[in-house]
């Protein structure tokens, strides 16, 4: 039998995200011929899942979920590999009235042990009743779930042995949760973002409307299914707009980034999203002869988000791929966060990247963004910052910028970015539920990001929270500090982590550690152990800097000041002043 991918166009009249719930959206999509297609890292079509089949299979699983006695609203953790089983179980939960919790698969090389600890915290925080994952991760899942008294752990295959006796299904309703999103929070202290059907449908309908989707659209994605952009943007948006989508696994993409472009080219796809580093990786690894074989002329929406957007790498991507028909106006900068389902704002469609240069000194001293015409002679690039315009808030959503005391700031004044609107989460789940500082009673969400507005457009300049973002992944300083403090030589409170600008404008993680040890060999050993622990758990390069006691700077209340320790590190090491930055690790 020759397997062919689902078509781009079909006879079913397109409806654009005007559904009350996700199950209703799939009910409608199942009337057509479109669906999801899964490709290997070498471009082979592995499996095809038309929405019609997805609905049928999801309902059969929903019967099983019901029959094993799950209660309404119970959580079902799904180890989210790029595989059709994820869609099957995610939608089975929708039909069965239980809440899916997408969790990451083990990703780091040699990170198996650390992963089980992370997964265990997620299972425990979400109080999951079931954990489903690919059989090859069975041992990790079993170890992570030990003693947590889950009702079932195992693979989709093993789960299929339960009886699928049909029952009357009561799908999740508009006011109930659609999923629990764990991208937010650190790996040590996870936060489950509660997203209702109403919130996610509102975000999806705004997104679909902004993208001006047509019946000729087709998407490609390599984004992980457990991440809000991968899940809401590229798993759910296709379903609610009955659009066919082609997937390549995240690790397969990391190994062969060109596959993203090959898939775009061969599928004549029109829509794809990624963090800036994805575009950068692609451009860096592209060979000249590859470019000659690609046709990217159909690509009309190249969404960019999830981390601070710097224009240069994207420009390079556009330049390298212009001969293949890539139009730089396809770039669509967006701003968003898991706490607001996914998107908060999009730049106008077909406009490409729009950025402005502002006076860096004025910005840091007076928190005001004064534009500079960078074409003027004598303007020094080092004294300017460039920010990308992320557009206006979605319809029905409001964004304001406030100062530290909560007073709303005028345009071009930099402060904390707050969002209110129908896409905003209902709160955090479980132990981390009480966070009035994040979500106020009147519905304002403190995004933790810092920025300013110009003519109602959002410009993000940095973050208030100490979050470090590397390769599109959120790295929390608490996690780096925790790993350092696990060494017997390091006392609690003796580590402080932050990021500094690294090579090529990327963030470079640093952890500064106060240490009594004076023996050079022993110090080297401590650094090595911490470096290994960070690599195994987080998969990043981090500068491990051992310093004498009393080097870390504390606030008047005795709390560590990461911000001031960072300034001290920059001064002490003359960071960024020499052409050769300190080698990482």
């Amino acid at each position, binding site marked *: 039998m020759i397997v062919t991918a689902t078509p781009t166009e079909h006879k079913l009249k397109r409806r654009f995200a005007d559904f009350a719930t996700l199950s209703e959206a799939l009910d409608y999509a199942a009337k057509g011929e479109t669906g999801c297609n899964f490709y290997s890292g070498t471009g082979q079509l592995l499996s095809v899942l038309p929405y019609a089949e997805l609905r049928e299979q999801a309902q059969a699983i929903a019967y099983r979920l019901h029959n094993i006695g799950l209660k309404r609203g119970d959580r079902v953790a799904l180890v989210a590999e790029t595989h059709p089983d994820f869609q099957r179980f995610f939608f089975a939960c929708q039909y069965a009235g239980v809440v899916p919790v997408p969790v990451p698969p083990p*990703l780091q090389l*040699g990170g198996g042990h650390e992963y089980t600890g992370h997964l265990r915290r997620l299972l425990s925080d979400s109080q999951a009743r079931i954990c489903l994952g690919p059989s090859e991760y069975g041992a990790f899942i079993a170890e992570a779930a030990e003693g947590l008294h889950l009702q079932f752990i195992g693979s989709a295959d093993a789960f299929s042995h339960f009886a699928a006796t049909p029952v009357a299904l009561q799908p999740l309703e508009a006011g109930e949760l659609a999923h629990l999103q764990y991208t937010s929070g650190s790996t040590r202290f996870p936060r489950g973002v509660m997203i209702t059907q109403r919130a996610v449908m509102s975000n999806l309908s705004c997104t679909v409307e902004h993208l001006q989707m047509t019946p000729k659209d087709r998407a490609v994605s390599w984004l992980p299914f457990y991440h809000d952009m991968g899940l809401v943007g590229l798993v759910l948006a296709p379903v609610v707009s009955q659009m066919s989508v082609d997937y390549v696994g995240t*690790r*397969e993409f990391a190994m062969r980034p060109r596959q993203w472009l090959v898939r775009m080219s061969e599928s004549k796809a029109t829509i794809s999203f990624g963090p800036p580093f994805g575009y950068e*990786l692609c451009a860096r690894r592209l060979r000249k002869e590859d470019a000659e074989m690609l046709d990217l002329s159909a690509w009309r929406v190249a969404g960019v988000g999830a981390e601070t957007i710097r224009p240069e790498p994207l420009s390079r991507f556009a330049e390298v791929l212009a001969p293949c028909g890539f139009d730089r106006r396809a770039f669509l900068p967006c701003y968003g966060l898991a706490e607001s389902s996914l998107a908060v704002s999009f730049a106008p469609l077909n406009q490409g990247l729009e950025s402005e240069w502002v006076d860096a000194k004025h910005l840091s001293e007076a928190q005001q963004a004064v534009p500079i015409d960078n074409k003027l002679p004598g303007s020094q690039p080092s004294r300017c910052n460039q920010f990308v315009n992320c557009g206006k808030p979605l319809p029905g959503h409001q964004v304001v910028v406030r100062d530290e005391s909560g007073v709303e700031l005028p345009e071009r004044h930099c402060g904390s970015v707050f969002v209110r609107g129908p896409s905003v989460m209902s709160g955090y789940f479980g132990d981390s539920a009480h966070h009035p500082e994040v979500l106020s009673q009147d519905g304002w969400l403190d995004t933790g990001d810092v920025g300013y507005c110009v003519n109602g457009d959002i410009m993000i300049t940095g973050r208030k929270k100490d979050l470090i973002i590397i390769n599109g992944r959120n790295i929390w300083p608490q996690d780096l500090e925790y790993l350092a403090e696990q060494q017997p030589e390091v006392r609690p409170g003796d580590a402080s982590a932050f990021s500094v600008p690294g090579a090529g404008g990327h963030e470079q993680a640093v952890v500064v550690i106060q240490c009594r040890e004076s023996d050079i060999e022993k110090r080297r050993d401590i650094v090595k152990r911490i470096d*290994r622990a960070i690599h195994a758990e987080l998969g990043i*390069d981090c500068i491990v800097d051992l310093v004498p006691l009393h080097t870390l700077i504390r606030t008047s209340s005795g709390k560590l000041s990461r911000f001031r320790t960072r300034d001290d590190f920059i001064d002490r090491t003359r960071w960024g002043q020499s052409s050769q930055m300190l080698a*990482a690790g």
Partner: protein
Amino acid sequence: MQSYEENLATLCTVLQRHVAAEVIVDEDTMLASDLGIDSAELMEVLLEVEDEFDISIPLNILPNVYTVKDLIAEVEKLLGTAR
């Protein structure tokens, strides 16, 4: 059929191309931390390992691969030469 030592030498040659000259790669080298390269570059290295040995590495084995020795063991499994 290549011997273990030959496979090790081949793998070390591939790895050595990506690391600073002063880093000596041997069978106990920890892939994730001792090479001083980030996870994105590590994936590029794996691609070269695939090409060099003409194998396809199932990526879900990675969480259990810590050292060069572990990687050789996987490569040999894939080559059908595991001892």
